[in-house]
């Protein structure tokens, strides 16, 4: 079977969960090989992590010439690797940067590209959620090496012991690729909560919070959930844009989504409509969000949420 390349999603060598989901999906198309682009001394640790999820090989690409630049050097590196390996497909976790890397790679390799897949079947058939989650589309790459970006939470990662043999892959990065530079970077403070796009439960707040996110955050912490916000809450300056769920923010697909004081405009639905279970708390019984819910409470979030939080804490003992 041919190899399927999976780009490892990691922060400082620590491998993130979507990588394991992609490795699980990759096994449907061929033999998974992981690609680590990062500091040379972190490759072995990453390889140790991915070999438990079926990575037979791990290509280690030293990012000395890559980090600090945007997109283009990564695309060049992956092009060189793909040319050598001739993989059956290349899978990348769907992030804003990876989609751009995939876009450049598609042109370089003259290969078709599918973004934001939520499932992948034998034969390379992808499922995507389109039009704000109102439709699903099944698609297939018909030219070149299929390049597919996959959304977090698209598969349950399956542990599968594999060799995880590390192979150093030297790359040559052109000067032209090093022209857009990261001048300064301010890492975000860790909240201690799960990543919004990867979380199993998301608790969101909107205009109805009136700017007070404390009830939202306390409920989120009781459930071990991530915190989200509607565009109205972000535009009001109550939450940073990175918390925004919706068309121009993050798309989430958790097991449980709890929308509080959010009316449910199409732009917000686009970001959460594919959640497995949807719950809403809103004072306005006419709010369109109630058309989507599995369970809804017409009431004031400022009284309902603290009471629910207390009940959860009590039940969890």
């Amino acid at each position, binding site marked *: 079977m041919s190899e399927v390349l999976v780009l490892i999603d990691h922060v400082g060598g620590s491998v993130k969960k979507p990588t394991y989901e992609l490795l699980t999906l990759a096994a449907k198309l061929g033999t998974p090989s992981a690609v680590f682009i990062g500091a040379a001394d972190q490759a072995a640790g990453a390889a140790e992590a991915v070999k438990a999820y079926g990575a037979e090989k791990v290509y280690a690409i030293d990012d000395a010439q890559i980090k600090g630049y*945007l997109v*283009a050097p990564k695309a060049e590196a992956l092009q060189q690797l793909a040319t050598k390996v001739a993989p059956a497909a290349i899978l990348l976790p769907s*992030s*804003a940067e990876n989609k*751009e*890397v*995939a*876009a*450049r790679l598609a042109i*370089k390799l003259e*290969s*078709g*590209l599918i*973004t934001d897949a939520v499932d992948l079947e034998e034969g390379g058939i992808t499922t995507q959620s*389109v039009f704000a989650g*109102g*439709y699903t*589309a*099944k*698609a*297939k790459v*018909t*030219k*070149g090496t299929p390049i597919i970006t996959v959304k977090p939470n698209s598969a349950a990662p399956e542990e599968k012991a594999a060799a995880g043999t590390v192979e150093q892959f030297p790359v040559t990065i052109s000067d*032209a*690729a090093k022209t*857009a530079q*990261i*001048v*300064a*970077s301010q*890492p*975000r403070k860790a909240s201690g909560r799960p*990543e919004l796009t990867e979380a199993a*439960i998301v608790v969101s707040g909107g205009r109805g919070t009136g700017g007070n996110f404390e009830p939202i955050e306390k409920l989120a912490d009781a*459930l071990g959930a991530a915190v989200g916000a509607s565009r109205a809450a972000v535009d009001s300056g109550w939450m940073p*844009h*990175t918390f925004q769920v919706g*068309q*121009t923010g993050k798309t989430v697909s958790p*097991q*449980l989504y709890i929308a509080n004081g959010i009316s449910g405009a*199409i732009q917000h639905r686009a970001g959460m409509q594919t959640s497995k279970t949807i719950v809403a*708390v809103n004072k306005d*019984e006419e709010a369109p969000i*109630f*058309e*989507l*819910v*599995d*369970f*809804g*409470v*017409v*009431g004031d979030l400022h*009284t*309902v949420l603290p009471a*629910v939080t207390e009940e*959860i804490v009590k*039940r969890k003992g």
Partner: protein
Amino acid sequence: MNIVVCVKYVPDATGDRSFEADNTVDRVGVDGLLSELDEYAVEQALQIKEKRADEEVTVTALTVGPEKAVDAVRKALQMGADKAVHVTDEAIAGSDAIATSLVLAEAVKKANGGEVPELVMCGLASTDASMGVVPAMLAERLGLPQVTLASVVETQGDQVRIKRDSDVATEVVGGTMPLVLSVTDQSGEARYPSFKGIMAAKKKPLETWSLADLGVDASQVGLSVAWSQVEETAARPPRTAGEVVKDEDGSGAAALAGFLASKKFI
């Protein structure tokens, strides 16, 4: 200095959107408009022009799409763009992002007398297909760097500095023109066309080009040569509204806790 802003004509997201029998987006039988997310790119282009008042800056709005797509560049002209180009050709229908970026790349060059302009600007993504990959593809085809997803844009001479929120950090990114620049909806509210702007737009140059005008062969674009094919599309079954209860004296919280427990979330 020349700025070409790429804009897209999309079906109105608040109306009913659907697919044609060949699984392409129905762009004809629906109400369309300039993609909201591209308005931010037009706005930032106009702001750059206004800030660089001591030099001549020309903002050209460019769109690729069916006959009605001309409305997208008309709106950009009304907002204040100096000229517009509409590339339309029956052969383009059904093109994927890869073919679209080819047509755009040739049109960007032709709109600037055969050369790459100092700035090629785009929105964050379209509101229909929303892949968000065209700016990167365009950059690759034009051989340019890209600085994307800007929430704040500053230019000085040939230098571009942007601020953006990535998943893990807030970054300042810099590049040297020429480059491809995309902006998000955080970059600042787009202006409404004024009455004066609407009247002035009628006199501004608007050119219509075919593939032949661009020297692109019809066999390189369209649905049949797309590098990926949509095999089927299906409307998601509408979510059936579940139970909605009214909170009275704490009953709502108890009911909600009961629901969460029944689904094993607590």
